[in-house]
């Protein structure tokens, strides 16, 4: 290694080469398949959708692999690698190299995808704005991670805001969305000039992120004070004033509930709160909104807890949210508690977190609609409900829908516990990949549907295509029930949980599945096949075997087996 630049490049590549090769291999394979099916109109539509999904996944994966972050403590939540501060290299190079290499990796994947996957299909993807967008996203991410080394909540807040902007900001570059949205927001200039300003903003965002990162890393390297000390003081004061516990804990269970809540309980409400702030404040300041925009903003407010629960749930499933290490920390592992008690505390904290999040989302949305919204579209929606359902049904739907969103958000939070608590890194990564595939596919289908809304496609048109689905879902329900019976039997045999607690969880499951079933039955009274399918899906969605399995995998993780 002849220079620091090469040494850092080698380190980044050596650590992530498997991920990099995997991303490029996926794109190469997709490109080869698309080249083989080119000109075949039957397959090109499917190949295009699949191509988008694979490209997004490959970009996510590259992003996750090539960021330059390390925990200061053993496996701790990441920041700029502290060890490099001792190297005889100027700070600006220490900051510039990782940013540059990461950006190049992400750009390589995008350009390779645009060329290999889409050119054979005769589709030309834009290059300039996506490249600027990706570089901006990567550098902003590194800036946030490096700038708040000791404040996990500030980091989380920054990442939530940035994720919200990055996840949806690209839509402003799509001509049909841009034109409609600008007029909605009361922008009077031309879309071309707006786009030009956006491009300039993107081009400046990368250097700005570099500058801020350089300043912060320089401060950290030389032990200089953090400019946000008042925030730290406020945090400390709040913690002492409201979060301290003068009374001793009544039991060990209460103690771990407190610990888990302090560690992870706030994350989802804070993330959703940040998104609410980002959504509601600008839309309130931009002046009177139309009914369509009001409905759009409300939809986004109600979707965001689900989306964040899926993302945060991946970390929530680990033994320690803030730690990359999947092994249970010895401090916790040597406490005289069963694995069942640990998992139960997690489940309760997830429930409290979801309740707080939805309380916040509902409160903010009511206040926001009352002050800034337009009721036209909402009224139309209500009229439709009135047309289809009786008053009792409407009220039932409202109550059941509220419980359903709570149950589903909770399900997304705790869905990864069994795998995350197992301590098996490969299982965990595979599970994350599968989750990403499912969600990206779902989003791609939604985007495709909205792009082809002129196709007069109705739900009943789908039935001939999914006649096999009841069998699959029925089989899955039977498999799930069998697995649950075995799992809870094991939990009971190993005395991980009191039998009353097992019965209580089973009772909760029955209640949740019953509420979802009730919602489906009332919502779709006439379409029997859809109703029955959704009932099966409801039974599958509420975790039954998962928590028991999490207890078993945690016990194995705890004993290093």
């Amino acid at each position: 290694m002849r220079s620091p630049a090469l040494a850092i490049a080698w380190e980044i590549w050596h650590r992530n080469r498997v991920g990099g090769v995997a991303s490029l291999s996926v794109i190469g394979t997709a490109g080869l398949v698309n080249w083989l099916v080119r000109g075949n109109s039957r397959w090109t539509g499917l190949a295009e959708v699949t191509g988008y999904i694979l490209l997004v996944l490959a970009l996510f994966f590259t992003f996750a692999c090539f960021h330059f972050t390390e925990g200061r403590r053993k496996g701790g939540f990441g920041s700029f690698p502290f060890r490099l501060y001792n190297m005889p290299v100027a700070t600006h190079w220490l900051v510039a190299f990782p940013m540059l290499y990461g950006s190049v990796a992400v750009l390589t994947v995008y350009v390779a995808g645009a060329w290999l996957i889409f050119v054979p299909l005769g589709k030309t993807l834009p290059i300039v704005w996506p490249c600027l967008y990706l570089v901006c996203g990567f550098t902003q991410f590194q800036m946030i991670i490096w700038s708040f080394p000791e404040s996990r909540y500030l980091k989380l807040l920054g990442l939530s805001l940035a994720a919200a902007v990055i996840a949806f900001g690209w839509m402003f570059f799509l001509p049909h969305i841009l034109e409609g949205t600008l007029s909605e927001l009361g922008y009077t200039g031309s879309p071309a000039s707006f786009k030009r300003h956006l491009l300039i903003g993107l081009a400046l965002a990368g250097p700005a992120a570099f500058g801020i990162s350089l300043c912060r890393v320089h401060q950290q390297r030389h032990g200089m004070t953090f400019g946000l000390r008042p925030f730290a003081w406020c945090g400390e004061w709040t913690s002492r004033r409201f979060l301290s516990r003068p009374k001793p804990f009544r039991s060990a269970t209460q103690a771990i509930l407190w610990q888990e809540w302090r560690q992870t309980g706030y994350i989802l409400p804070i993330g959703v709160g940040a998104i609410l702030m980002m959504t509601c404040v600008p839309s309130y300041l931009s002046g009177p909104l139309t009914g369509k925009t009001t409905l759009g903003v409300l939809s986004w407010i109600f979707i965001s807890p689900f989306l964040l629960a899926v993302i945060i749930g991946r970390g929530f499933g680990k033994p320690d949210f803030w730690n990359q290490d999947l092994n249970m920390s010895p401090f916790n592992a040597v406490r005289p508690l069963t694995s069942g008690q640990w998992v139960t505390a997690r489940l309760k904290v997830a429930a409290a977190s979801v309740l707080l999040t939805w309380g916040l989302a509902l409160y903010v949305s009511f206040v926001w609609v009352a002050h800034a919204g337009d009721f036209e579209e909402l009224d139309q929606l209500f009229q439709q409900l009135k047309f289809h359902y009786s008053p009792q049904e409407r009220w039932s739907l409202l109550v059941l829908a509220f419980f359903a969103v709570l149950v589903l958000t909770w399900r997304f939070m705790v869905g990864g516990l069994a795998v995350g608590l197992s301590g098996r890194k490969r299982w965990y990564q595979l599970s994350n990949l599968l989750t990403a595939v499912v969600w990206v596919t779902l989003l791609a289908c939604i985007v495709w549907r909205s792009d082809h809304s002129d196709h007069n496609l109705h739900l009943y048109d789908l039935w001939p295509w999914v006649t096999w689905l009841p069998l699959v879902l029925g089989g899955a329900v039977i498999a799930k029930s069998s697995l649950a019976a075995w799992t809870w039997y094991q939990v009971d045999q190993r005395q991980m949980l009191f039998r009353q607690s097992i019965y209580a969880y089973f009772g909760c499951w029955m209640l949740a599945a019953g509420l979802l079933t009730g919602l489906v039955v009332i919502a779709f009274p006439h379409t029997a096949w859809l109703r029955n399918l959704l009932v099966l899906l409801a039974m599958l969605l509420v975790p039954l075997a998962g928590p028991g399995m999490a207890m078993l995998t945690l016990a194995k993780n705890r004993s290093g087996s």
Partner: protein
Amino acid sequence: MNFPSTSSADAVIAITGLSRRFGSKLALDDVSLFVPRGSVFGLVGENGAGKTTLIKHILGLLKAESGSVRVFGKDPVADPVGVLSRVGYLSEYRDLPVWMRVDQLLGYTRAFYPGWDPQYAEQLRGQFDLDPAARVKTLSQGQQAKVGLLIALAFRPELLLLDEPSSGLDPVVRRDILEAIIQTVADEGRTVLFSSHLLDEVERVSDQLAMIHRGRLVLCGRLDEIKEGHRRLVLRFDAPQAAPPPMKQALSVRGSGREWTVLCNGERSGLCASVQQLGARIVDEQVPSLDEIFVAHAGQKAGALEPSTACS
């Protein structure tokens, strides 16, 4: 090497034929160990010898691949609550929740142990000079070690496990930790097992000692007996020797020409007979330090090690 006879009847920790493999590396090889109640048991060995792996098995943080581990007669993996509620543990990796304040950490840990003694905890906190309002992350390494020791001791555990407790600490903190160990032993019926590189520490507080080398138990017994069982002999030959004298009890041989220093293990009569057979005479004889014994055993080649047998 024959260790004293196996006796698990009064053992707080009973390990039999324990082996553990991490990939291709054999971390523990057929280790049998019995730690009697009320003893201070020192565990020594070089880095990577298997000390931490052994302690993790005792805590149930690793499941025995072969052999068995019993603590208070229970399997720590099958019954973690029954075992861990009676065990205090401090490791060289402090691994404390750094976001908690000291008082929060004490209150939190107290909830897990019905036998927590608040007066004793307060006494230790004062003795260690720990600020209850300080966040754990703001404490120095030595202070974090003291906090770790405090929460390991404050419920007066029947068994105290210390894994390299004074690693990387200054002499003052090391002294505090040793005093706490001695105090713990003074409480009737308490047992301490601690691993350390610092043999002067081990020598100061242990009454029993086990040495692990490359996953095998190579030395185990009462400390005074171990020391008595080793001799450093200075041998003089009539003619210069080209190679080190082939003495079967020798653990290490140094020297050249006519005079050689041999550190050996065995009965004195047997050693004298071996020396006579070699045609040499003993010109000096001393009891070696624990350091010398440790280095001599650690310096032996793997093939030269004798298989371990049960140790109590």
